[in-house]
């Protein structure tokens, strides 16, 4: 925009400002009421500024519960719980697998058949012939 355009823009601004002085009194009053209503509902300052002398009383606790720290905790706690839960399930599965292997080992060791029999090629041939007969 060149200088003429900017000059025109500011002249229009001046004209619009003049119009503002001619607003009806009822409108001006209504705007003042609206402003007062807005101020009455102004967002309070953050917790450290609103209750610096409250110590560890209920005021400070309430501010903590409604503050941004609480909203971050509301996300962090479920995520942490989920991670811990997943870890627990994994550990439990591992334990179950180990227990199953231990049972098999115990059964093999407690069997009447000596452990060295499984290394004997003749025993394997015997088992195969038994399976064929069945």
């Amino acid at each position, binding site marked *: 925009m060149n200088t003429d355009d900017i000059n025109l*823009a500011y002249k*229009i601004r001046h004209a619009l400002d003049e119009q503002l*002085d001619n*607003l*009806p009194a009822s409108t001006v009053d209504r*705007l003042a009421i609206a402003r007062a209503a807005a101020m009455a509902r*102004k967002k309070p300052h953050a917790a450290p*500024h609103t209750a610096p002398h409250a110590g560890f009383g209920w005021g400070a606790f309430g501010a903590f519960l409604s503050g941004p720290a609480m909203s971050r905790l509301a996300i962090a706690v479920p995520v942490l719980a989920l991670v811990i839960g997943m870890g627990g399930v994994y550990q439990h599965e591992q334990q179950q697998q180990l227990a199953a292997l231990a049972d098999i080992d115990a059964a093999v060791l407690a069997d009447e058949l000596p452990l060295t029999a499984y290394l004997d090629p003749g025993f394997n041939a015997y088992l195969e012939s038994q399976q064929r007969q069945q």
Partner: protein
Amino acid sequence: MATDKELNDFLQNVERRAFKQAVYAVRKDESALDIVQDAMIKLAEKYGDKPAAELPMLFQRILQTTILDYFRREKVRNTWVSLFSGFGRGEGNDDDDFDILASLEAEQGSAAAESSADQVERAQTLRLIDDEVQKLPTRQREAFLMRYWQDMDVAETAAAMGCSEGSVKTHCSRATHALAAALKAKGITL
């Protein structure tokens, strides 16, 4: 962080211009007042703890959103009302509140030297400028008013309008040219 006084001063400073902005958009004084009140309350409730420097941009953004919400509600309502009620612009046109007599009365004290004819001409000129601003396309009018009436810089205007800085410059330029052409066509020189 804006103190109560800073927020109050800010709202007091922008409320009339915000009202006119809303009137330009919705063309009903009562609706415009409701929109400004809603925007003020939203700013105070949700952003009352923001730094004072951020308030103009935030307020403009809220104001534009509230105006959009108004049009959405109107659209929904109008689908349920009879076709003849239209968009309600005919019956509720409160622009007549800005009559020449009112402006004459306001100016009498400050411009005693002006003749009655000058005052009438001045009032008519102001009214024509007002009309021409209202006739601008919405985005051009928003950009023009934020930049030159609300004293926001290009970056703040772009953030409030949700567009690029280049678009803001284009809107402002087009708005100024359109106003210049319209005023020239009516024989108005500023």
